[in-house]
Structure formats: C-alpha cells, structure tokens
C-alpha cells in the first residue's frame, strides 16, 4: 500500500520534472545528431565492422620501399575479410578549386584557406561509402571509408599536430610500433604499425614530407604494409578541392570570417542523397558561431518556427545558444560557441537568413 512518503515522492518528482525551461526536442535531436555523426564517422574509420579473417600481416621492419602507383606490377588488393559492407560506388566528389595550386606546388598554402583542401583523395574514394573533409587554420584533413579503404590523411606544417583528435590511433587505443624509416613515393618517411585489430587488418601510420616544410600523416587500415603504402601513394598533391556544401552563407557578421569547414558525404543511404552533414565555423578573434546543416531525411525539423530569418523561419532553443531552421531538405542549426559576448540573436538570424541552397542538392559539382 502506498505510504504518504510514496505519494509525496511521486508528486514531488513529477512537479520537478515539469519545472524549468520549455524543451525543444528538434534542437536537441539536431545537436545530438551532429555530434553523433562525428562520433560515428570516427568510429567507422577506427573500427572495422567486419568479420575476422585469418589473414596474417607482415611486420614492418627495415626500410620500406613501396611500389610506385604507376608501376607496371600493381600490388594486388588486400584479401578482403568476409562480411565486408556493400560497395556503393555512387559517392560524389567535392568540386575542384579551379586555377589553384596543390600542396605539391604550394605547400605554404596548406591550412591557410578554410574553404580549400590542397590535396585530393578522389582516387581512393571510388567505392567509398563515406568521405569527410575538414579544412581549418593550420591543417587540412580528409578521410574516406569503404570496404577497400579506410584512411585518414592530415596535412600540416608542424609534426606536433599529429595525431589529431580524430586519430584512429587514439580512437582505437592502438599500440603502435616504434616508427621505422621508410620511403613514400621516393621520399623519406617513417612507418609504424599496430598489431592485428582483430579483423585481419592492422593500422599503419605513415609520416613523410611531401613538399617543402609540409608534413603529411596517413593513418590507414590495411592487411599488409605494402597495401597501406600503395593506398598512401594514391593521394594527389597536385589537385585542389573546395570544401563545398550544398548551401552558402551570404552574410557574415561584421569582422567575421570563415574559420573552418567540414563536409561529410555518404553514399547509398536509404532514401537519402549524398550530402549528410556540414559544419561551417565563422567568427572573429573573440566570437564563434557554428552553422551546421544536415540532411533532414525524416522531416524531423518540420515544425512551426516563430522568428524571421530572411526569407525563412527560425526557432530559438531554450538554451539560448542554438537556433534551428529548416530549408528543405536541410535542417540547419546555428550554435554560439563559448565566447564573451556571444553573437546576438539578430546577428545569428541575419546569418541564417542569408543562406542560399545550391541548385543540385545531391550533385557536389554544383556546390
């Protein structure tokens, strides 16, 4: 039989749960999904969800002299463990930055323009299921994930940048061997490797200087060192890609600039397109505003909004830090990052209101 304490507890807890600010589930979902997408992308790169195969790796010892990519005797692909995910083949490519020189010619430009990646992994993404590109002050990152290749490449001007927070080494907690000297495309470098990750693959970390004072690091999962180095040599330093999104921001707050750009593409989603997620960080010396856009596959963001943002409608989250806006099919969120004072609601709405969509939502060549 319920006691007086039981009844009071029930009433008290229900009363407290109802207290507090109103809750906007769409904003919560949007921020959680954005963060979750990052976690999942890292995890996809880090852990291969494949059945284990009894494929032995070759210890990296001594000097590695990989075959060049134009060799007449190409390295056969890894024996693929069973249970590999379906090859998709319809992943789009970010558009070229026409007229710009790549890291091979202008290593000094790497990490100086958040809208550009001074290298290309297009040749690795032929059957990739997903690809992610990040360009921000100081470094550029690109990764691809697919049944035949899982690789994360970072270009930077200081070796101290490695490994980055997205590192597979960190995510896996992989114990890497001491680096040994090797050559990558004829250039001196180092290679370290992990033990079998449990699925027949090992993690290789290859570091070299592709041009000038530029450092490159590739973390790649492969069965053999030869295969890892073969994949690494498919990185093109003579191509430049734009960190493009299917939307553009037409108006920045006074003094603000684009600080970083991230875009995730994914192939073969149920009912979805190629664009998955993008994040544009803008700001100045003191303030930061992150604009995220995600493909609103289930019309999660389709609800009334009360604020005017240019031609669109936006809604403020009760947390005072997040605004959401739906421009079908992209659900946007504007998130003020820790800064004092943060951007005002008017400034945020001006930015959101200036967004325009590309004509070819699922055609990166039009972005």
């Amino acid at each position, binding site marked *: 039989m319920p006691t007086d304490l039981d009844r*009071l507890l029930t009433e*008290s*807890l229900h*009363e407290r749960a109802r*207290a507090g600010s109103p809750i906007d*589930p769409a904003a*919560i979902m949007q921020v959680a999904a954005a963060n*979750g997408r990052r*976690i999942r992308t890292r995890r996809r790169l880090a852990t291969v969800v494949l059945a284990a195969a009894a494929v032995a790796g070759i210890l990296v010892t001594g000097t590695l002299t990989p075959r060049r990519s134009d060799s007449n005797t190409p390295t056969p692909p890894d024996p693929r463990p069973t249970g590999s995910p379906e090859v998709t083949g319809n992943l789009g490519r970010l558009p070229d930055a026409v007229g710009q020189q790549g890291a091979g010619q202008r290593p000094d430009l790497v990490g100086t323009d958040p809208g550009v990646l001074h290298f290309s992994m297009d040749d690795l993404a032929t059957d990739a299921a997903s690809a992610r590109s990040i360009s921000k002050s100081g470094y550029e990152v690109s990764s691809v994930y697919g049944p035949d290749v899982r690789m994360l490449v970072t270009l930077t001007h200081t070796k101290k940048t490695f490994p980055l927070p997205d590192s597979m080494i960190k995510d896996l907690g992989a114990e890497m061997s001491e680096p040994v000297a090797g050559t990558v495309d004829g250039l001196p470098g180092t290679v370290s490797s992990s033990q079998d990750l449990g699925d027949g693959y090992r993690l290789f970390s290859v570091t070299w200087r592709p041009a000038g004072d530029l450092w490159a690091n590739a973390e790649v999962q492969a069965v053999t060192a030869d295969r890892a180095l073969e994949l690494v040599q498919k990185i093109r330093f003579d191509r430049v890609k734009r960190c493009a999104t299917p939307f553009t921001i037409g108006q920045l707050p006074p003094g603000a600039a684009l600080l970083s750009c991230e875009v995730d593409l994914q192939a073969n989603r149920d009912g979805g397109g190629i664009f998955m997620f993008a994040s544009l960080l803008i700001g100045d010396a003191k303030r930061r505003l992150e604009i995220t856009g995600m493909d609103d*596959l289930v019309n999660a963001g389709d609800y009334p909004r009360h604020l005017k943002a240019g031609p669109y409608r936006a809604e403020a989250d009760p947390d005072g830090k997040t605004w959401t806006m739906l421009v079908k099919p992209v659900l946007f969120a504007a998130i003020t990052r820790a800064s004092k004072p943060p951007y005002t609601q008017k400034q945020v709405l001006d930015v959101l209101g200036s967004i325009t969509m590309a004509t070819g939502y699922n055609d990166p060549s039009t972005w």
Partner: protein
Amino acid sequence: MYKDVTFEEYALARGAALIRFARLLTADEHRAEDLVQDVLAKAYASWRRIGALDQPDLYVRRMLVNANTSWWRRAVNREVAVAEVGGIATAARDSAADSADRDELWRLVLQLPARQRAVIVLRYYEDYDDATIAELLHCTQGTVRTQAKRALEKLQQLRRPAVDAAKGER
C-alpha cells in the same frame, strides 16, 4: 516500444521525456540538457544496434543513468559540491502544506547518492517495477530493493526533523 524507428523519430518523440528524466537525475537544467545531448550523440552513432533492440528507450535511459553516475563519481573525486540545488527553479510555494513537503522532499532527494537517486526516480517518476529497474541498472532486483530501502530510510530519517520543525511552526 520505439523498436525499429529512426534515430530522428526516437529523439523527437522521447527527447523531452529524456530531458525531464535527466533533470531529476542531475538537479541541474543545463547539465541535464548536456547529458541528454551527449548520450543521444552516442546513441546516434550506434543507432543501428540500439534501434533494433526490443526496448531502445530503456537502453538510452540506462546510458543516461550511467553517464550521470560517472559524472557524479568524477565530481565527488574532484570534491566538487554536487548537493547544491542547481538550475531547476523552485516552484512557487502555495499555502498548502503538501507543497512545502514536496519542496522539502525534493531537497532531500538531492542529498541521496546518485545510484539511490536513480532508483527513486525510476520507481516514483518513471513508475518502473523492480525488475525493469534492475534490467536498466544492470543489477539484481535484490540490489534495487536494497537501494530503494536505504534511500527511503534516509529520506525518512532526514525528513523527520524537517517535519517536526514544520509542525512546531504551526
């Protein structure tokens, strides 16, 4: 319930309920929201697996309880005061004695250790039976009953002086 729904459908349907649940676990409106967003982000990353469970909602709630307990342990280790009533605004008191009792009881609930508070919230707010709470907390029903008994005894013990004082004022 919520088996085989998309993450977006789940988060939209249950986001508000999770926040309310987290408010009771954390006693802090902002930390509750952060906690839910962290847990949902992790759930998103594993949704193919979680969404296929018979009761994904129960699983996400378990993640919330565990995340809060971990935070609470870290906070205690850092000697951070956690008993303070944080961001949840105290509702305006009415003249009814019950309201004062509810306020007082809430303050006492906040003094319970995180695990005991979780049991109390799951039993009296979520109205889960001991078997469900045990499943959610990954423990035996006996442990749930023991935790609940200790929590209720402590609440009675703490509440008695407050009730006596209130009677003295009347």
